[in-house]
């Protein structure tokens, strides 16, 4: 149990920041894809900018994880097809439902229980991908 508490706390912060920044809002996603506000671009941009710096520092200082391994980001497999097609399918759903997988869970906490339908459908989508995986171009 104890080893999970840190993940629980990180999750709480994640939920708070995504609500307080309004990144969980359907309206903000619409606004982003309409290029009518800098808000979401600012969030993603500063997150990536800060992330690049943190990862460079940790590489330079050879920071160890709490598990005793070297801190590193697992590399994504090389490829093009799966990323562009999968990404586009994801984007269609993201804009329509206004929620990506993190916000989906967080919205339950805000009392928006109808989001559970979106989560159930996302589980079905994941399941169908699992069934079709070997037949799809990657």
């Amino acid at each position: 149990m104890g080893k999970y508490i840190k993940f629980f706390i990180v999750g709480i912060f994640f939920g708070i920041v995504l609500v307080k920044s309004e990144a969980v809002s359907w309206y903000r996603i619409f606004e982003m894809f309409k290029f009518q506000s800098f808000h979401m671009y600012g969030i993603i941009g500063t997150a990536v900018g800060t992330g690049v710096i943190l990862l460079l520092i940790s590489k330079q200082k050879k920071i160890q994880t709490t598990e005793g391994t070297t801190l590193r980001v697992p590399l994504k497999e090389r490829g093009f097809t799966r990323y562009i097609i999968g990404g586009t399918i994801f984007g269609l759903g993201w804009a329509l439902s206004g929620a990506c997988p993190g916000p989906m869970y967080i919205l339950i906490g805000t009392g928006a229980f109808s989001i559970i339908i979106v989560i159930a459908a996302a589980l079905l989508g994941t399941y169908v991908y699992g069934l079709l995986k070997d037949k799809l171009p990657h």
Partner: protein
Amino acid sequence: MEFILQPWPWYVSGPIIAIIMFLLLYFGKTFGMSSNLRTLCAIGGAGKHAEFFKFDWKSQRWNLVVVLGAILGGFIAHYFLSNPIDMDLSEATVKDLNELGFNNVGQSLLPPELFSWDAVFSLKGILILVIGGFLVGFGTRYAGGCTSGHAITGLSSLQLPSLIAVVGFFLGGLIMIHLIFPILF
């Protein structure tokens, strides 16, 4: 305290998200929210039907704990750390949404036209939520990650596959909002 109760600006929120990503890496894990969908499928017995779900899901329990925390975080932020004020959306967005038939834009996190129970129990309403969710779940696994795994973690570590995926995210989003929304609404 007043600062916390107000909506947080992007230049505060973005760096905090990066710190969350970094903490998970520091704990020897990764930041990837959509992986939980695969884990939940595996717990539900999907491994009987597809190899993709035959993995040691117990090793992913930490990520489900992140999800539980995130739900609690959403609850805390919404009910204890927020002033009841409208979202500061751009005027153009409000105008465009009004023209599409959305009213009271920005008075809640989600538009009642799509997420109220009245909307959910209409044929069009339920189809929008189900198709939207399905595409997210299917697309994220096909692409091997979502906003957290590709846009934040993948771009932060300068990985080309993640850049391609993020281009895809925007391609899909732009098609939906600019080409499909005018037909739907």
